[in-house]
């Protein structure tokens, strides 16, 4: 006698619950993710880390003063208007200063001395000008007088 083959039962996995879960997770992460603006670095170093056993080149140092109104002075000369964020005159002078220091084989160093009420934006404008002039040794005068820390 010829037996009739039974139809093979298809082994199917029901994907619906998994897809439901994945959609829920997706919606959760989409809602909870907040996109922040990309932040960038503008760095400086405080003095006082040199090892005393090593010989240290005495840097060619210039002090930039920033007044409460945003006026910027280098060697008692005022550079750029307080509203000028790009500070082209200061950048030009700082590039010359760096080139002179390099010619003398000494590191160029800038100390920024802002007054107490100067806004952070103006301080960052000056740091930005130092970066534009490719001066890496930048520090701050933050003592009670004008002494550096």
């Amino acid at each position: 006698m010829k037996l009739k083959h039974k139809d093979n039962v298809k082994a199917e996995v029901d994907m619906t619950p998994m897809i439901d879960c994945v959609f829920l997770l997706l919606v959760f992460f989409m809602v909870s993710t907040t996109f922040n603006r990309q932040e960038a670095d503008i760095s400086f170093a405080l003095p006082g880390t040199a090892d005393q056993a090593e010989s240290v080149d005495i840097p060619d140092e210039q002090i930039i003063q920033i007044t409460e109104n945003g006026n910027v002075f280098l060697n008692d000369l005022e550079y750029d208007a307080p509203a000028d964020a790009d500070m082209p005159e200061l950048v030009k002078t700082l590039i010359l200063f760096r080139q002179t220091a390099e010619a003398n084989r000494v590191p160029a160093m800038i100390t920024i001395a802002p007054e107490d009420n100067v806004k952070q934006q103006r301080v960052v404008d000056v740091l930005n000008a130092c970066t534009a002039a490719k001066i890496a040794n930048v520090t701050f005068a933050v003592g009670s007088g004008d002494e550096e820390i």
Partner: protein
Amino acid sequence: MKLKKPDEPEANVDMTPMIDCVFQLLIFFMVCATMSKVDLTPEVTLPIAPRAAIPENPSGRGVINIVPLGTPAAGGATSEDQPFLVYGQLTDEPGLVKVISERLKTEPNLRIYMRVDHNAEFKVVKRAIRACANAGVFDIIFGAFQSESAGGGT
């Protein structure tokens, strides 16, 4: 005569590409959510510095937030006495020295990332810089945006 009906072809939709896309999106948002765990206080509006550089490796940093005075925070609002925000907690200069010193024990190459509001006054920033120096950290970074309308990133 009885005619045999031909089998109707099943109208199956292939779900595979959709599931692939959904998984890709899921992984993207999961990674984004993990990356934004850094202490970024939203009240701080950073200054603009077109020459600022996007960091390649932002690890090994301690974050100090300096918001405008009077900004609400956990346990009060920022004031002249407690102007610094570290992980949402108000702190003063000695507190800042303590926090940095403790972190320095586990991370000797610690750098301090100062997120200072563009309208904050330098006298407050000066105190934070002094606290860093007292704690023994000399490598300090100011946070800035590269442009007014810089978008993207997480």
